[in-house]
């Protein structure tokens, strides 16, 4: 099955990333999605004085059964992107196409059938569950809203879900406060799974959990993906976790995609200087490699999305930036020698094998 045609509309988005696994159906297509949050001056006569450009032209394709990991730091727009896809936030421009149907900015009524197919798991196990509702009601709510099961049938379905995610079905009448963080996240997973969706958007589902509980939840998500044929859009800022769960990875910076591709390409053969810096920043849980790690230090702070830099958003902090970087937005495209599905948005990508200047901690110490 051939990939979708590249979008002509927005040059900043570049080519539409396509998937090497040509056999699977395309489940989700995101086409140059832009989301600006207007800033108004306060008061009765408020004026529109600017925008928070949270997502500024992102495209992606997600095939059935795959997991796309989205990484980036705070402010890169990944959570906003998730909410755009889930229809929780109206999109400023662009399209979201699910199973061939355009679901951009649908009315609540029109969106209702799609809510059964697209679900979300949230980051905060303490905030994402209503503390006044019992767990049975929380997990059973999808059934109630979509009128697919009532009474005892619903209770049975909920208890079955609880069992599937590793919770004790007898705790049906308990409140969220009586569960640990990991268990609450399981409740969230059960709730998302209730109507057997096709796509689950996981917004940092393990970031708030301890290391060993993280592993339990990640295993659970992997099992459920196998059992139910789920497709995941997995958002996180922990690079190791994303590498573990994803088939493909997208690195976002300030509302745009910096790099996109199969995970091993992005992790081992990345081109974008930001990707390199990000990969070098987080130490592995291994003292020897932590000591030997060449950390690329980025100067400056992440700029505000209200007034993002012109051209390539990363250019003020990039060690390789030249004049053109501040003038022209680099297109997201495959660089020479790369497979067609590894895309980088950079005018001066770092060739595979070349290192970006960095220093180990010991070297930094000696230099002082």
């Amino acid at each position, binding site marked *: 099955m051939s990939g979708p045609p590249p979008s002509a509309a927005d040059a900043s988005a570049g080519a539409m990333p396509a998937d090497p696994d040509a056999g699977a159906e395309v489940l989700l297509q995101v086409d140059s999605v832009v989301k600006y949050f207007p800033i108004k001056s306060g008061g009765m006569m408020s004026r529109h004085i600017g925008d928070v450009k949270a997502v500024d032209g992102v495209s992606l394709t997600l095939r059935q059964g795959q997991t796309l990991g989205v990484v980036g730091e705070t402010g890169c727009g990944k959570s906003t992107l998730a909410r755009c896809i889930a229809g929780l936030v109206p999109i400023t421009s662009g399209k979201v196409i699910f199973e061939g149907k355009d679901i951009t900015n649908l009315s609540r009524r029109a969106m209702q059938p799609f809510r059964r197919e697209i679900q979300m798991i949230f980051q905060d196990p303490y905030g994402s569950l209503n503390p006044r509702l019992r767990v049975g009601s929380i997990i059973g709510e999808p059934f109630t809203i979509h009128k697919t099961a009532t009474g005892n049938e619903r209770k049975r379905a909920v208890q079955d879900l609880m069992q599937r995610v*590793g919770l004790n079905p007898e705790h049906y009448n308990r409140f969220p406060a009586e569960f640990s963080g990991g268990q609450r996240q399981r409740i969230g997973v059960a709730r998302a799974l209730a109507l057997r969706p096709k796509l689950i958007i996981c917004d940092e589902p393990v970031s708030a959990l301890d290391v060993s509980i993280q592993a339990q939840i990640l295993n659970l998500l992997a099992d459920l993906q196998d059992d139910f044929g789920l497709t995941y859009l997995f958002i996180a800022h922990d690079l190791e976790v994303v590498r573990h769960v994803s088939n493909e990875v997208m690195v976002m910076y300030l509302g745009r995609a910096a790099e996109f591709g199969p995970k091993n390409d992005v992790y081992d053969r990345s081109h974008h200087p930001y990707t390199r810096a990000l990969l070098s920043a987080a130490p592995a849980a291994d003292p020897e490699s932590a000591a030997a790690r060449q950390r690329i230090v980025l100067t400056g702070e992440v700029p505000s999305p209200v007034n993002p830099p012109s051209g390539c958003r990363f250019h003020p902090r990039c060690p390789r930036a030249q004049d053109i970087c501040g003038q022209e937005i680099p297109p997201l495209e495959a660089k020479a020698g790369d497979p067609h599905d590894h895309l980088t948005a950079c005018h001066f990508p770092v060739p595979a094998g070349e290192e970006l200047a960095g220093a180990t901690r010991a070297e930094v110490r000696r230099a002082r």
Partner: protein
Amino acid sequence: MSITEVEFQAASAEAVPEQAIEGKSQWQLTWRRLRSDRMAIASVITILVIAMLALLAPAFASLTGHSAVQQYPNTGLSASGLPVPPGTAGFWLGTDELGRDLFVRILYGARISLFVGLSTTFMATVAGVAVGLISGYFGGRTDAVLARCIDAALAFPYVVLALALAARFGPSLPIVIGVITFFSWAGVSRIVRGQTLSLKEKEYIEAARSLGAGPWRIMFVHILPNLLGPVLVLATLLIPSAIVFEATLSYLGLGIQPPVPSWGNILNGAQSYYQVAWWYLVFPAAALLITTLAFNLLGDGVRDALDPRTERIFAGQAGGRKKKRRKAAAADEPAAAIAAGTAEG
């Protein structure tokens, strides 16, 4: 066997220690705290006593042989035509200037006060919650309009309104109830609107929307239960203000008209006679004071029970309350105290 099942079994192997701590809902915990609050218990008992007395007013009327409106100039007035003191001739609390039994009148006045207090509070709360929820949740123009209505209602001069209505339609109980309800709903609304605005941003609301929940479901199934605590406190504190308002209106002659007794219009009569008949002023005033105080203290107790703050526990309030709480926290219910902490958190 998948790992998830193995994990589940490992978890249920710990089921015994888990079950030892039975989790409780917010209301169970609140109730438990309320039960141990002496002041709140005293208030509840007082209110119940007053309610009993009010309910049994007809029984007392037949017991004393005096009705609330009937004048008894022969037995109820002294030789010089003045009210008789308490204990004279079967008048337990004395009489008023027309020889009417003060005690029975006070009891019937209690009926009015409680009825007005409870009914206006109920209606104001329902209306206030509805408007506050809608205004806070929908935002935008709906909120702009409704918020202005709330502001207007709060700024309104109510006594003037009562005066105008009384002048037009003649003073009566329905007018009193209408004016008081109209006066009270806006305060509830403003608080509910504020709470709704902040609750609306919670992640579980977003989760509900992602499931496909519509605005009404979100407002009444998700937001409302989280509002009930503050609303309950507010309602409990509205009752005494409604009672006092009714008394005020009746005192001014805009509410219940004599001979039907209301604490307000009794006090109106008392202001001319208290120098010769202290009981005429003291007893209805005491009734009003005790009732209002009881509801106010109950409201405080409910607020504390719903949302205990550690600083208050140790900063020292009514001595009995502090000691009782410390004992409860330390000795018999450590689990509940911690569960309370997690439930509230």
